[in-house]
């Protein structure tokens, strides 16, 4: 549940609950007040009636009130007795006395209704024949409905205004949470490897430290990442220069001392040169493996002319190929492929390099491409010994070499080539398939690039 929804719901519930409680309390209190007020009215009316009747002297009273007078009334009923003789009544009051009580308030039923009744009698010290009693009654239902009308018209607006309050609260909360919404959107749209600062700015004191801390974190992360990335190139420089020195000195030694050395010395020199080459290769492969690591490589995908790229790699590797007296051929139509240039060059270089290294001298290497609707496949076949099917799964492990330590020591390698190839294939969502070459009897390695995802990447 979002904070906004939670706040709106909880605030509305509280407001509704409190309003109703207040309304009920107000209703109760108002009702009591109204009751007192009505009682007071009854009392005043009774007393007034009694007092008015006393003004008249006995004769007048007898004459004018000789016959029971009926006063039309809708609401309040009353009876006026003199010595238990009915003098005056309203038309909604019975002829008989409603109650035997002589004074005070009571509630009783007559004529199918419940009434609030006030009784008052003239004092006993009056002459005997003029003992007067007045009974005033008001229907309780009426008192209620009157009171209710008044109270409801006071309470109703408060209840009616609740939806309006809801609207305002919702708007206020939405406005107050806007910086948070903006931040949320920016964070969710941020790419996983985008470590740039957040552009959201806020004046809200609660959010400022959050954004500040996040930005600091991003900054530290990105500097850590770039340190890691630069570590590779720093290491490259640190290792490559001394390796160059080694190579040059071996070369110089070979040139200047060749004739002075005996056969053993010469053999040592060749060994030295080979070891230096091997070291250079291992360093190069480790750095490449690092650089093509999917976490490290920032993939810049471009449209690459595939045939030209393959020609370039074969040309680059040609001195090595000719050293092994291999025959290499390329069968490729002109195609373009969306890929990272460095990664694809490295992949092709490793595949052809492997074929060249592991095929006995004077072998055949075939590089070809196959294009269909959905995918594009790069295939390298050789006439070498191939790889046992049981080893297919393991050759991609780092530092794994077919045959383990008994590997031909003359072959320069470190067991990283196919691990690198796999990294790069993964980066391009490509599949690697190992098989036996039917044409050349050696290894056939195919890298299948999906066309669709490649195009979409751009």
């Amino acid at each position: 549940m979002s904070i906004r929804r939670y706040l709106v719901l909880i605030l509305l519930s509280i407001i509704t609950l409190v309003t109703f409680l207040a309304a009920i309390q107000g209703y109760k209190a108002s009702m009591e007040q109204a009751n007192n007020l009505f009682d007071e009215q009854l009392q005043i009316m009774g007393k007034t009636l009694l007092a008015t009747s006393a003004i008249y002297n006995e004769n007048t009273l007898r004459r004018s009130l000789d016959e029971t007078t009926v006063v039309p009334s809708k609401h309040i009923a009353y009876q006026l007795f003199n010595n238990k003789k009915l003098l005056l009544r309203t038309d909604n009051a019975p002829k008989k006395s409603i109650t035997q009580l002589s004074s005070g308030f009571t509630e009783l039923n007559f004529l199918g209704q419940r009434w609030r009744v006030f009784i008052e009698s003239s004092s006993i010290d009056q002459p005997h024949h003029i003992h007067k009693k007045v009974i005033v009654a008001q229907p309780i239902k009426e008192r209620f409905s009157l009171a209710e009308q008044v109270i409801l018209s006071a309470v109703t607006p408060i209840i009616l205004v609740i939806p309006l309050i809801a609207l305002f609260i919702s708007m206020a909360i939405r406005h107050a949470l806007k910086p948070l919404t903006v931040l949320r959107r920016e964070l969710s749209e941020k790419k996983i490897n985008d470590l740039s600062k957040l552009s959201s700015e806020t004046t809200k004191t609660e959010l400022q430290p959050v954004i500040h801390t996040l930005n600091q974190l991003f900054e530290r992360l990105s500097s850590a990442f770039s340190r890691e990335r630069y570590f590779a190139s720093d290491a490259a420089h640190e290792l490559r220069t001394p390796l160059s020195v080694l190579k040059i000195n071996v070369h110089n030694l070979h040139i200047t001392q060749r004739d002075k050395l005996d056969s053993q010395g010469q053999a040592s020199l060749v060994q030295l040169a080979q070891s230096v080459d091997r070291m250079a290769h291992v360093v190069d492969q480790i750095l490449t493996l690092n650089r093509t690591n999917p976490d490290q490589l920032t993939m810049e995908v471009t449209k690459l002319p595939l045939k030209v790229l393959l020609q370039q790699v074969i040309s680059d590797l040609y001195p090595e190929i000719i050293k092994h007296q291999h025959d290499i051929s390329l069968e490729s139509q002109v195609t373009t492929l969306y890929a990272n240039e460095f990664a694809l060059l490295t992949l092709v270089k490793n595949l052809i390099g492997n074929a060249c290294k592991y095929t006995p001298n004077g072998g055949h290497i075939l590089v070809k491409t196959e294009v269909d609707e959905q995918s594009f496949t790069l295939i390298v076949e050789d006439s070498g010994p191939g790889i046992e099917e049981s080893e297919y799964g393991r050759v991609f492990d780092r530092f794994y070499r077919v045959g383990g330590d008994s590997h031909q020591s003359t072959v320069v390698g470190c067991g990283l080539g196919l691990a690198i190839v796999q990294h790069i294939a993964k980066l391009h969502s490509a599949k690697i398939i190992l098989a036996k070459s039917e044409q050349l009897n050696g290894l056939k390695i195919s890298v299948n690039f999906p066309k669709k995802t490649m195009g979409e990447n751009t």
Partner: protein
Amino acid sequence: MRILLVEDDMPLALGLQQSLRHEGFVVNHVDNGKSAISALSVPDQDLVILDLGLPDIDGIEVLKRTRDRNLTIPVIILTARDSLEDKVKGLDFGADDYLVKPFEISELLARLRVIERRLGTAKSALIICSDVSIDTAAHKVSIKDEEIGTSKKEYMVLKALMENAGRIQSREQIESRLYEWGEEVASNAVEVHIHNLRKKLPEKFIQTVRGVGYTVNKR
């Protein structure tokens, strides 16, 4: 040929100087960018071998300032930076070649010789591959010291191949060499010239790398 070697790593500089001097080059060595720029203000160098990771000014900056002053002196970049961007940047700023450490000294020498011939400062104008030699000064081709006749275009094709002996030249690369000479090139021109050259040259001298191009072996 006089070479200015700009390299801050002393052991590497010493080793390189020894190799280059042994090959008959005159080498001047400086170990920082400022000295390189001031050395280049006097026109007594024929070529620069430039390391990019210099202690004071970056090698690319040295290259840029050199080119800004309209100096056309050939520059070979020698560096530990092997990313494609670095390479493209180096070549864009006008480097003639780009070698990544650790490099094969023979590769460096081959590239130096190509530039040397281009500058016309080579002691010998001869390029020799096994029995075949071409005299780049006289534009003549000989087999075992016996001169054979070639057309101008055939000579260009052969020169391109022999200058890059041991490496593959694609049809497009050879074509672009012919274009440089302002020739109209028909679509199958290279194939025709190669075919004609093969008839005149020893068997298997020019080899075809199917799908890639042509090559001539070094020895």
